[in-house]
């Protein structure tokens, strides 16, 4: 197998070093890079993360009562929450995000989520991705609809997703790309061999069903390979790879975004949040998932460099979990959750949302947080203020939206 380093050597020897040419080519597309200057990264936590332990209302006496063993200890205690504002505390496994909070580039919107009442993971995820809660017939995802209204030229790599499958949220008529996680995402393809590539090009050009998917794959691969090879040259003296999954992918994503200005939208889904049993408190199962998530987000923010000022990162999950822990040290399916926003334009250092408290009377159906902020209000604000969509464009992305939420201002206009 020829690894990338050898390939680069070979290309240097044969004089076919394409990278600087690529750099100049990008410099020439000034208009497009202006149009794609503002970036959006969506991170989806599949399986319904326990938002009450991500941003824990330790200031509410009911919190400790409802969660005698899984609740986070108060700030300052062993394994305790990291204080945010004297009432809410951040899960200690997310310590890597504290700096962003202090720089006011991280905010949360608590008790937010889908207005649809379902507690089915699969329906709730579907609605979060289609952007049309309660309506199952929607064919495309809201990120894909967003692509169709953004200014600038559509290219297959304008929106990328990390993972083996194209997610529902990016399904639709605008081209998009999915990349394998880890190093496989920027590996040479057998189709890079001219003879093989040309043979399959001929065969797929004539296919009614698969021609466009095939061509998008070819175009995206070329672009990503160029961006990642350039990166390898720059980062020849770079640090050691990070320990596991998401931090690594986040570092990779940051480099790709820096090197390929056409990438404007990115999506990552992370699983393993369905903690019905044994979820732990400051330590344990949930903590073990949150730690690499926090590290990955911090890595992404740092890796984007100055580009982070033009980036908004949204973290969301299909619904929250029960306020009361169940008999197995876990939580069952609930309703309202917490959304996270990070970025240069975020008016951070604040927990937003209409917070009602955890008293019996405040809980929805006596078990979980009511949804007081529609998730679309959060996404709409990002679309309007950050990506500069007009009202008409916004309606195309989120049809049948609720009225604007005037109290919610988590992005600086």
């Amino acid at each position, binding site marked *: *197998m020829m690894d990338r380093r050898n390939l680069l050597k070979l290309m240097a020897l044969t004089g076919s070093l394409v990278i600087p040419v690529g750099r100049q080519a990008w410099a020439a597309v000034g208009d497009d890079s202006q149009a794609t200057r503002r970036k959006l990264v969506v991170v989806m936590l599949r399986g319904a993360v326990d938002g009450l332990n991500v941003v824990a209302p330790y200031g509410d006496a009911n919190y400790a009562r409802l969660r005698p063993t899984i609740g986070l200890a108060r700030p300052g205690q062993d394994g305790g929450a990291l204080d945010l504002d004297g009432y809410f505390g951040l899960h200690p496994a997310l310590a890597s995000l504290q700096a962003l909070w202090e720089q006011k580039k991280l905010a949360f919107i608590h008790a937010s989520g889908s207005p649809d009442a379902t507690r089915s993971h699969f329906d709730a995820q579907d609605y979060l991705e289609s952007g049309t809660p309660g309506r199952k017939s929607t064919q495309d995802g809201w990120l894909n609809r967003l692509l169709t209204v953004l200014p600038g030229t559509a290219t297959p790599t304008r929106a990328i997703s990390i993972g*083996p*499958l194209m997610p529902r949220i990016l399904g639709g008529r605008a081209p998009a790309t999915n990349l394998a996680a880890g190093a496989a995402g920027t590996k040479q393809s057998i189709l890079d061999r001219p003879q093989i590539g040309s043979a399959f090009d*001929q065969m797929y050009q004539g*296919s009614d069903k698969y021609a466009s998917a095939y061509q998008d794959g070819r175009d995206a691969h070329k672009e990503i390979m160029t961006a990642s090879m350039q990166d390898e040259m720059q980062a020849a003296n770079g640090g050691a790879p990070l320990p596991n999954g998401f931090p690594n992918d986040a570092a990779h994503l940051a480099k790709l975004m820096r090197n390929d200005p056409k990438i404007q939208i990115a999506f990552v889904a992370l699983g393993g949040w369905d903690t019905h049993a044994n979820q732990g408190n400051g330590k344990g199962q949930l903590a073990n998932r949150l730690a690499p998530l926090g590290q990955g987000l911090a890595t992404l923010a740092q890796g984007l460099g100055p580009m982070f000022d033009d980036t908004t990162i949204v973290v969301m999950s299909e619904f929250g979990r029960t306020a009361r822990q169940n008999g197995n040290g876990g939580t069952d399916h609930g309703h309202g959750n917490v959304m996270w926003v990070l970025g240069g334009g975020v008016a951070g250092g604040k927990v937003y949302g209409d917070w009602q408290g955890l008293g019996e009377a405040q809980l929805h159906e006596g078990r979980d947080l009511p949804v007081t902020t529609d998730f679309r209000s959060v996404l709409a604000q990002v679309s309007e203020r950050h990506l500069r969509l007009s009202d008409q464009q916004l309606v195309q992305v989120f049809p049948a939206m609720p009225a604007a939420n005037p109290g919610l201002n988590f992005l600086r206009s």
Partner: protein
Amino acid sequence: MKLPIRFAVLTLLSVSALAATAAPLSSDQQALHVLDRLGYGPKPGDIDRVKHMGVERYIDSQLQPESIPLPAALSQRLSTLDASNASAGEVLSEFLAVRKVANDGDDAAKQKRREVVGKIVEQNAEARIARAIDSPRQLEEVMVDFWFNHFNVYGGKGLDRALIGSYERDAIRPYVLGSFRDLLGATAKHPAMLFYLDNWLSTGNDYQARPFRKGAAQGQKAKATGLNENYARELMELHTLGVDTGYTQKDVTELARMLTGWSFEPRELARNNRTFRFDAQRHDMGDKEWLGHHVGAQGQGEGEFALDVLAMHPATARHLSYQLAQYFVLDNPPPQLVERMSKRYLETKGNIREVLRTLFHSPEFMAAGAVGAKFKTPYQYVISAARAGQMPITNVRPLLGALNQLGMPLYGAQTPDGYKNTEAAWLNPDALARRITFATALAAGRLPLNKAAGQDNNVANAPAATAAEPPLDAKTLLNTLGPAISAKTRATINNNPAALRAAMVLGSPDFMQR
């Protein structure tokens, strides 16, 4: 202006009517279609064999797999897989032993654990893949895949690493063409499912675990002190009724209460192979109100009653019929067909064989519009390529690696809804390139399929110089696949260098679909 529009509509109508009625499938197409749908596509000579036997007779024989003998070579191979033939208890016992030693042991103990767990996982995979490729009872294998996925358990979760083989063999395989109620009951009581969806920990709310009860596993006791509704919810949403069929959160909680005490104890399973235990002390003895039924305290009988009700519910009949029709006919299955299958389901008290008979003998199944209309899942793609190529395979690792690359690791669906089987789920730009990469390596003989396990490491991308197997022959492949590869594709293939042709057959758009 009106006239031309109406004329255009008429033309369209008559053209589509023509396509539906006036283009009967050739006998080759019919044979290919049943091989692609009731199985994982043709092996060399299969199309002729089915034509000779007659398509209807082929369908009927596939519906009676016990009438089809397994080839001696396959039986012999399966019989050597000790870990996959051992009882759930034996495998768990071995698993717990190495886990315990590794937890407080050194690197050698950890290495031993990796070996033992690796052997268990690999043998299960080998049993599944060898059958999928070589069993002449193809429909049985397809239905094992279908029902395993319907009742998905993630093979990477804790004890389920050890229990997944027994789950497929004991709770799924014997029932795939039988009574749905039996299948439902077997999955509900298998420790793999009890563990995966946490029901083994679920107790009545006032249950207090006694700290030193004899024979109970410490970990479980510590954790089991209240209701867990995970399984009850997925039982209704995924396994039977389907989502949005009228049940409420209260119904979920009440069903969870009815199922309290359905459990197993790991130590007792490891020692005595006792796979299921109803623990009356953990059961919630209160009255329940569930789906309009008043349920008085009946111990284990409450859960059995729930499974009876759920199995025979009209919503279950529709949900299962829809899923079967989607798997076997079209991504958006014809509603009339789903309706007829549901009716048959209820008439036969949930007899899966009879529902499938209705499906396979329906005009919708044999319609020209259904042929080639399903995009293969990665599993179907990989298995069908191995069947078409008919190369000897003693090492399934490269195939498992391909499934990982293509996003569908075997026993690797983490969520209880399993894998989807629609084009929207699997067709993406990267998927085509990855399939072509696999096809090229397979066709060139670059996959070490005939090496003893352990000799290979990631050879999928090795240069051709280290060829492990003879390359495949394009002509043989084209003969095997018959009408699966269109004349247009054949022409393109023939315009390219001979060394590329076999890869082009398996990497063609035509071979991506079934």
